[in-house]
């Protein structure tokens, strides 16, 4: 091993990958843009849907020639316009009305006689606006029913409170001396998104470099001349490894930058009103770095094994899916009741630990196990990479 050779290889590879458009696209552009864009589009979708609902909802009522009080009630509701199309169902299909209210037989009679009066909401199952409109109409019907109920109760001399034995309200318990972790939904999103990012983006950022630095050398036939220079194999390998590691870290940093940018651009979608303690932040960063170190080694090994860019791409792309599994697997786990053996499972432990520290659970045992496992895996991955790079049947695989 020769530090000078390592630095020569590292500098050359950096120069090489940063002159490559793919590095900028995969390592910088995509991570920076993906969240702001996602939240922006989600925001547009949400606002559009909401504004559509704020507009008046067009409905039709099929009364089958009956007169009923409820018709007048709904016609007078604000936000609901009752249309009178010739064929209500055709109008529903065309989207001219969002829902059709069908009165059952003898509707008004049943109301008067205090029997259940049937009413049906016909909606378009492929239109999300239709189902939302239907629930608005349903609420209108409930309001009408409530009015009817009240009349009936007062007729019997009963006050409405009699029918409401309990009053329920929700409040998150915040222990004394602690602050609220913020909006529950935001917390849930962050404990999913952050570990997901910190696992996935080392690969997204590092993969193009890994492919180029391993199989790329083979494909362009530059590996043999390189190996016959005065530099030893280990130095060449370390130089390449450090390049991929840097690209991985850049991928993570840019994606986090993207997340912050997203919260600035669409604060209503991604409020950052939640806090991370310095200790938690240190743990998050170290775990992410260890994961990047481990994955860089694995990616480089696989890439050196592959004979061509294409082959390397085929072998490497499943890694992203493998990395997503722990993130999804842990999505609904109760962070307060994680069993310690789970922290011996590689990758899963990293995700779980990140989630724990995000909600301020600092469990020294979990931290110790996870870090030991991660460090062991980094060492194993480096040893594997070194082994692969020294093996003739890998370097000269034909």
């Amino acid at each position: 091993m020769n530090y000078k050779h390592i630095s020569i290889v590292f500098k050359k590879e950096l120069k090489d990958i940063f002159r490559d458009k793919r590095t900028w696209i995969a390592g910088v552009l995509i991570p920076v843009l993906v969240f702001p864009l996602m939240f922006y589009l989600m925001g547009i979708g949400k606002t559009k849907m909401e504004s559509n609902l704020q507009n008046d909802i067009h409905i039709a009522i099929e009364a089958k020639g009956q007169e009923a009080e409820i018709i007048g009630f709904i016609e007078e509701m604000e936000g609901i316009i009752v249309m009178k199309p010739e064929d209500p169902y055709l109008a529903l299909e065309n989207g001219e009305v969002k829902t059709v209210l069908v009165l059952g037989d003898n509707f008004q009679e049943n109301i008067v006689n205090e029997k259940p009066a049937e009413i049906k909401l016909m909606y378009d199952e492929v239109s999300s606006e239709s189902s939302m409109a239907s629930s608005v109409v349903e609420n209108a019907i409930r309001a009408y029913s409530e009015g009817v109920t009240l009349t009936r109760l007062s007729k019997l001399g009963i006050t409405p409170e009699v029918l409401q034995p309990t009053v329920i309200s929700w409040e998150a318990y915040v222990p004394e001396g602690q602050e609220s972790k913020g909006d529950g939904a935001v917390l849930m999103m962050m404990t999913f998104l952050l570990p997901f990012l910190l696992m996935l983006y080392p690969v997204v950022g590092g993969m193009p470099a890994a492919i180029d630095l391993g199989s790329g050398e083979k494909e362009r036939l530059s590996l043999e001349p390189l190996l016959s220079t005065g530099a030893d194999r280990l130095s060449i390998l370390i130089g390449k490894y450090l390049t991929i590691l840097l690209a991985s870290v850049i991928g993570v940093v840019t994606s986090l930058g993207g997340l912050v940018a997203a919260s600035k651009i669409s604060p209503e979608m991604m409020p950052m009103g939640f806090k991370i303690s310095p200790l938690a932040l240190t743990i998050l960063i170290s775990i992410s770095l260890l994961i990047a170190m481990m994955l860089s080694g694995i990616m480089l090994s696989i890439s050196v094994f592959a004979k061509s860019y294409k082959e390397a791409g085929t072998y490497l792309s499943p890694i992203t899916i493998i990395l997503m599994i722990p993130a999804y697997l842990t999505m609904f786990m109760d962070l307060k009741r994680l069993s310690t053996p789970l922290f011996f499972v590689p990758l899963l432990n990293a995700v779980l630990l990140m989630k724990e520290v995000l909600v301020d659970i600092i469990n020294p045992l979990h931290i110790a196990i996870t870090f030991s496992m991660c460090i062991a895996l980094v060492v194993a991955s480096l040893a594997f990479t070194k082994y692969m790079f020294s093996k003739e049947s890998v370097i000269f695989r034909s």
Partner: protein
Amino acid sequence: MIEVKGLKKYFKDVEALKGIEFHVGKGEVLGLLGENGAGKTTTLRILATMLKPDGGTIVLNGKNVVEHPQEIRKNIGILFGGESGIYDRLTARENIAYYGELNDMSKEDIKERIEHLAKIFNMEEYIDRRAGKFSKGMKQKVAIARSIIHNPSIMLFDEPTSGLDVGGARIIQQFIQTCKEEGKTVIFSSHTMSEVEKLCDRVAIIHKGTIVESGYIDDLKQKYEKDVEDLFLELVGEK
């Protein structure tokens, strides 16, 4: 100076080299002739320390290849295939300098040497342009310059003209000629008999991992009373 004795190499169960023997002196060009799969590339890779031999001894400039791989590498240059292995996103100068640095040359020496090489190979015009858009011939010159940036005393060529047009092949042939004149020790493998006859002092004919015949071209011609091509076919043909 190259001295190879009893060189063996296995790939799993396949015995690719079964005791190769030859020597090449300073200022001499040895042609390594053999059919596909004979073992030429394997031999040259072992000489360049990329593969480890499973038996035999190889001594380059008085040093054992297995014991001093790194020192050996600083004294050899390789050109495997014609224009292979140029980094498209680096300039010609950066491509060449990279190998100079890896061979522990000083910055000044590299600069000087590149100026010199750019002049003899007529590369001055494009030396600072990125290699991606170079023609085959331009890339080839960069590859040649890179292989000799550290002025190695031993040059190994593996089918350096395969896939090149006449002009490209000519550049390489002239380069081999220059190496010889500069007193380098040269081995080059080839399928092309005319090329071998033109450039080599001696030939070694390798067949299924053994050297079946070697010697000065003229001696061999006299011995077999045939031209090189016919005697090659006789030696490697299935008998």
